[in-house]
């Protein structure tokens, strides 16, 4: 086996160890999951009360609510996941042991993605009950997975930058909007089409755009965090 494949196997193992650590810590305390579920459930219930039934363009509005709520949920989850490593400075040890910043970034994206997916499963069922939305088209699962990847990537990038610089967490919610607006518009459009007509022919272009954004966020995030950690040294 050559050194390149050794290095790749080592990186995959490290990614797995970092992810396992994050999830184990989170499932032990459940703090981030519970806070996020309560936060999102509260917003969904409030909208249900405020939202008059039978209003025109109901599906469109709900699709917007879904993704905006998940975007802000992802901010909470990202901050929680990053603080696990910065609270007692164990991140310094992780980096001192020569863990690649790209691997660290990807592990955080996967942690946030997993937690966010759990939150989504809970909240989607709430949307189904409260708004009688039709989520029977299984393509919605693909849309949720793809959009979660992008949202997780962008909030992890902003989360690392803000936590490491002791920036106020509130600034995240301001920064995240311009970055994610074009991306979320695609997700909203796709969700709206799926809940309304269920026809996937109309959404292919938006789906491709979401995939393209996912790749851009993942690659640029890995590069940006690498440069940031180097500069911070």
């Amino acid at each position: 086996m050559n050194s390149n494949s050794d290095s790749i196997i080592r990186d995959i193992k490290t990614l797995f160890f970092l992810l396992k650590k994050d999830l184990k810590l989170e499932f032990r305390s459940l703090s981030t999951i519970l806070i996020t579920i309560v936060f999102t459930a509260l917003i969904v219930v409030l909208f249900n009360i405020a939202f008059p039934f039978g209003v025109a363009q109901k599906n469109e509005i709900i699709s917007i609510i879904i993704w905006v709520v998940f975007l802000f949920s992802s901010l909470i989850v990202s901050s929680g996941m990053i603080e696990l490593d910065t609270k007692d400075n164990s991140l310094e040890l992780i980096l001192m042991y020569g863990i690649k910043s790209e691997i660290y970034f990807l592990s955080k994206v996967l942690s946030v993605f997993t937690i966010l997916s759990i939150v989504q499963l809970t909240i989607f069922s709430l949307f189904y009950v409260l708004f009688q939305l039709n989520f029977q088209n299984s393509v919605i699962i693909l849309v949720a997975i793809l959009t979660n990847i992008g949202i997780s990537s962008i909030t992890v990038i902003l989360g690392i930058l803000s936590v490491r610089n002791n920036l106020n967490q509130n600034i995240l919610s301001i920064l995240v909007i311009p970055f994610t607006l074009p991306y979320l518009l695609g997700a909203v459009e796709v969700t709206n089409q799926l809940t309304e007509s269920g026809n996937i022919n109309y959404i292919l272009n938006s789906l491709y755009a979401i995939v393209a954004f996912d790749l851009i966020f993942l690659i640029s995030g890995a590069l940006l965090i690498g440069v940031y950690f180097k500069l911070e040294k």
Partner: protein
Amino acid sequence: MIKANNLSKSYNGNRIFSGIEFNVEKSRILGVVGNNGSGKTTLLKIVAGIINSDTGSINFKEKIKLDFLGHENMLYQNFSISENINFFSEISGFKICPELQDEIEKALGLQNILGKKISDLSYGQRKKASMLRLLISDPDLLILDEPFSNLDSDSTDSFISILKTLRESGKSIIISSNRKDIVGSVSDNLLNMDDYNE
């Protein structure tokens, strides 16, 4: 083993220290002393490779394994001591030698609390748990930042005797503290950071 030349560091335009030079040979302890804010932690982090110096260089005569014990315990509070040790051994790739682990656990008096969460330990126990994490990796050079801070006299004595044993077994150590009396009693050389501040 390690030679530092002309190290300097500034933060936001303020020079913390400049012109630092030192050698650490095998089986030697270098004590780094100085007042609060003199740059002890910064210097140790530079040696550990956690941060870069503005000028100068650190040369290692041979390929060595080093490890760092920071001000904070650098352990996950919701993990037990064992879980922390396992995690750091997994990501750093070092293999735990069970005999060495037993020996260090006994020396630090941690055998009965390995399953306890870090958040449930006393300050002294947390410090020892961090020391265990560091020693199990079996480094050639140990970099210890303020290991005696907030320790009672018994724990301090047991730390000093561990450091002496490590030196006898061929380890090199760089240790910082603002308690010159304690560091002076165990070090072969002293580096006073106050002499390099501007």
